[in-house]
Structures are given as C-alpha cells and as structure tokens.
C-alpha cells in the first residue's frame, strides 16, 4: 500500500510539473493574454483526461476485460452520428449548432439512450450478456460509422468542412463554453463513484462472486454503463473523439499500480492521463511546433499498444 502511495505522489508531482511547464514556458506577447488561454486548455485537458480514464477503468471492470473500451460499444460513433445528423438536417447555422449547450445535451442524451437501449434490448436474454453486448456494440459501431460516411458524402461541402472540425479531436481548439458543465458532470460522477468504489473492487471478482457478496450486480452494471456513457460524451463534446487514449492510460495504470483497488487505479489512470495530455501538448507546441496534433500521436502510439496487448493476451491464453 505504501509503495502505491509513493507511486501516486510521484505521478501527481509529474502531472503538476507538466501543468506548470505548459502554463509558464516561453510566454510571449503579454502574460495577461496568453496565460488564461493556456490555463483554459489545461483545464480542458485535465477534465478530458480524468473523464476518459475514469470511464475506461470502470467500463473494463464491468466487462471483465482489459482490451475493450467504451468506444467499442459504438459510443464515439454515436457522437459522430448525432453531429452529422444535425449538420445534415439543420445545417451549421441552426440553433442546434450555435447553442453549444443544446448541442451538448443532444449528444449526451443520444449516447446514454444508445447505451441503455442496447443494454435493455440485450438483457432480456440472460445468457452471457456482456459478450453479446460487446459484439453487437462493435457491429453497431461499424454500422453507425458507415451511416456517417454515407451522410457526409451527400452533405454540402462547406457544411462538411464545418462538421469535420467538430469531429477531429483538438486541444488547441477547445469547446470552452462547455468547460463549466463538464466540471459539474465530473464532480457528480466522482460523488457517485466515491459511494461505489468498494463495490467496484468486488465486481472484479466476477459476476457470481459479486452476487454472492451481496452486490446488486445487474443494476450496478447498468448504472456504470450510464456513468461511462456520460463521461465519454463529456470528453468527446469538449475536444472530440480520441479512440485509443482510454486503453493506454487504463492499462498503464494496471501495470504500474498492481492492485485491485479502484480508488488507486482510477486516481493513477487519471494522473497518467493528465501527464500524457498536458505533457504531450507541451511537446507538440514547443518541440514539434504544431506540425502535428496530439490526437494523431495518441492514436498512433495507442494503436501500437493495442496490438501489443492483443498479442500478449492471445499468448497467455494459448
């Protein structure tokens, strides 16, 4: 335990160093202008990082696997569908785009409904629901992706460009109006999370052992699915989809902090997220001089890591 608290303190210090570096390094053209702007981005990255880390860890606990993430359920695609439908039918000058709260609300509601319908529909049959859920999620993800592509081909080219900026993850172009709602959602998620931390630990023993120990398993799984969807919706609305990010930070956290305690795992994954996002963005801006974007690098490294995990898993299974 003490070992893990040292590790967490180390991660926290590293995260703070990254934030300070990003905030103060090489400030030009007026501190009063640049600093608040940078802090706004830092806040967005911290929120995104925590939301993705948190949702991925709890999602992987209820599905008992360490490779699949909420985006596999088609959640990211659902966000793209909602945005594409809005641009397609209402256009970029409609209230659904100009009012960011409305836009955000629509996306969140659609994503949670999507997760719930999937869950309700599938849980009427009570055999291996999670695997079925994931498989159908993957298929639906592909279906929704194709639908998006189909609509994007038909859409007006100017609208398409507008849509595209919304669907690509970017930390330099943060949706800052949503920052306060995002902070509120994150706080609520943590208040709820605080109450179920112990239950999450028990959930990692598997369905049967968890029920034996008095967990109301199916209801908890549903609550966590909703929690996961809301968190992913929040981070996606803030900066756009980053597919492989949750996978990297969750697995690094499992590897670095060998424990079953979710309080430790989630804190660790959140800190690693902050380091990766803020530190990574610092490198992008000052070393690569904005010749690439962070999400490209994250998906590149994450993709390689994903393949590594798949190979490792299949070797240990075989």
């Amino acid at each position, binding site marked *: 335990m003490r070992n893990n608290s040292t590790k967490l303190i180390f991660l926290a210090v590293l995260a703070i160093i990254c934030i300070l570096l990003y905030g103060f390094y090489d400030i030009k053209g007026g501190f009063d202008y640049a600093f608040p702007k940078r802090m706004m981005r830092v806040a967005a990255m911290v929120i995104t990082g925590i939301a993705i880390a948190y949702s991925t860890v709890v999602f992987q606990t209820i599905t008992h696997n360490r490779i699949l993430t909420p985006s596999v359920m088609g959640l990211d695609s659902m966000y793209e569908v909602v945005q594409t439908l809005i641009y397609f039918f209402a256009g970029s000058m409609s209230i659904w785009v100009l009012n960011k709260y409305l836009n955000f609300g629509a996306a969140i509601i659609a994503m949670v409904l999507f997760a719930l319908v999937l869950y309700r529909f599938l849980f009427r049959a009570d055999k291996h629901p999670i695997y079925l859920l994931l498989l159908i999620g993957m298929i639906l993800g592909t279906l929704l992706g194709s639908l998006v592509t189909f609509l994007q081909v038909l859409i007006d080219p100017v609208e398409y460009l507008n849509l595209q900026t919304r669907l690509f993850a970017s930390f330099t172009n943060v949706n800052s109006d949503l920052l306060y709602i995002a902070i509120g959602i994150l706080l609520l998620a943590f208040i709820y999370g605080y109450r179920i931390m112990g239950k999450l*630990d028990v959930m990692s023993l598997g369905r*049967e052992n968890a029920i034996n120990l008095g967990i109301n398993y199916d209801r908890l799984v549903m609550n966590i699915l909703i929690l996961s969807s809301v968190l992913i919706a929040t981070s996606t609305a803030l900066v756009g989809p980053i597919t492989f990010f949750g996978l990297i930070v969750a697995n690094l956290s499992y590897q670095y902090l060998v424990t079953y305690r979710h309080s430790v795992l989630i804190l660790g994954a959140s800190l690693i997220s902050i380091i990766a996002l803020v530190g990574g963005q610092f490198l992008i801006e000052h070393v690569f001089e904005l010749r690439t974007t962070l999400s490209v690098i994250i998906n590149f490294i994450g993709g390689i890591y994903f393949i590594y995990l798949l190979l490792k898993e299949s070797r240990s299974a075989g």
Partner: protein
Amino acid sequence: MIELKGLTKRFGKKPVVEDVSVTIEQGKITSFIGPNGAGKSTLLSMVSRLLDADTGEVLLDKNDVKKWKSSEFAKRVSILKQANYINVRLTIRELVAFGRYPYSNGRLTAEDEKFIDQAIEYMNLTEMQDKFLDELSGGQRQRAFIAMVIAQDTDYVLLDEPLNNLDMKHSVQIMKILRKLVDELGKTVVIVLHDINFASVYSDRIVALKNGKLVKNGPTHEIINSDALREIYDMDIPIQEQNGCRICVYFNSHT
C-alpha cells in the same frame, strides 16, 4: 430454513430443472447428486439467486429470495461456483478479506480481521496467505476460495462441485472441513457432488436429480442402496460396507 417450491428453469425450450420441491434441513450436509446434465448446478444457482427461476420460488426463512436485500442475503447464504477465473492479481488474504464485504463494505474492522485469520487457519493457508492466487496450485486456489466463503460466516454454505480437479488428499481434506463446519459451527452445507462415494461417506441427506426432475430425496442411508441408485444412474451398483462407510463399487458395473 431454505425451501424450494416447484422450481422450473428452461434454457430455450428444454427444461433443465422441472418442478423441483425440496426442503433443506438445517445443521446438515445435503448433497445434490445425479448424472451429467441432471440440473444440479442450475438448481443450486437458483437457490443462491445467481439465476432466476422461470416458475416456482425459493424461500429463506419463509421469505422469497428475490425479496431479500442483496447485502442481507449475503450475510445468510454464500455460494461458491466451480469456475473462478479472476483477472486481477490478489493474494490469498486479500481474497479472503472480500468475504467480509457484506459486513464491512470494504472497511475492515478488527472483528473482520479476526474472521479472516480464522478462515485462513481453518483452510491451512496461514503460511502462504500472502502468496498471489496465480502462484498457487488448483487445490490451493480452491481452498482459498472456500476460505473466503468461510470468512463470509453465513448460516448456509452452497458449493458447486468443490472437489473438481482436486486429488484424493485435498478432496478428503475439504470434505472433512465441511463436516467440521456443520458439526462444530452449526452451519448448513449444500453441495453438488460428482463422486457418489464422497456423498455417501460425508453427507447427511441426499437429493438426487435426473433429467431435471427430482427422483430421490432422503437421508443418506435410504439413497445409497442398489435399488435407489439404479433408478438414478441406470446402473447396477453393488455396495460394500467398509468401517461403517457404504462404498459404491461402480467401476466395473454393467452399463
């Protein structure tokens, strides 16, 4: 007291358990026996609310199991299934500590620690309690899981084929411990067994199932005789008495 009333479960159209009514007597070991696919494990899963029955009900102290609050039920009845794959790394002690979750909700008190120590000692795991589960042999793992259920300190302990993959020595050890749980601590044990002789030697009552239906239910000595066994297993099984134990010599029976 646990009562099973008219339990039926279908997977698809095929009934796996059909209209089974049994009363589990307190302070005894009751064994569920029967051929493969008789519905023993399904029945146990329904008693322990891992599975919902299609029709019929399970009553614990006259109250429907489904109406019990999960956390309260977990203080009265525990269940251990056969396959226990866990993908987190735990030591034996950490696993056993989970058995106290219904009482402590994750914050262990001194009393919880005492129960954990006792359970670990009961299963002879004290020296290796800080080893990780993935470093253990099948028998040691099985004992660790049983220790968790013992730490849970429930009146009823349900076990689904706990002797699977265990050698003779460990099988006997575990059955002796279950006997001790009943005789010394006054627990009620319900166990699904494959080996008829373990059922004969260690249990007080036997419930026999065949094709999902209840065929026999009674004290051990009424079930362990050639006539009753023929009805259950469709085999002629001679029985020999050894030191007061009835042993079924089925190895070269005509089938």
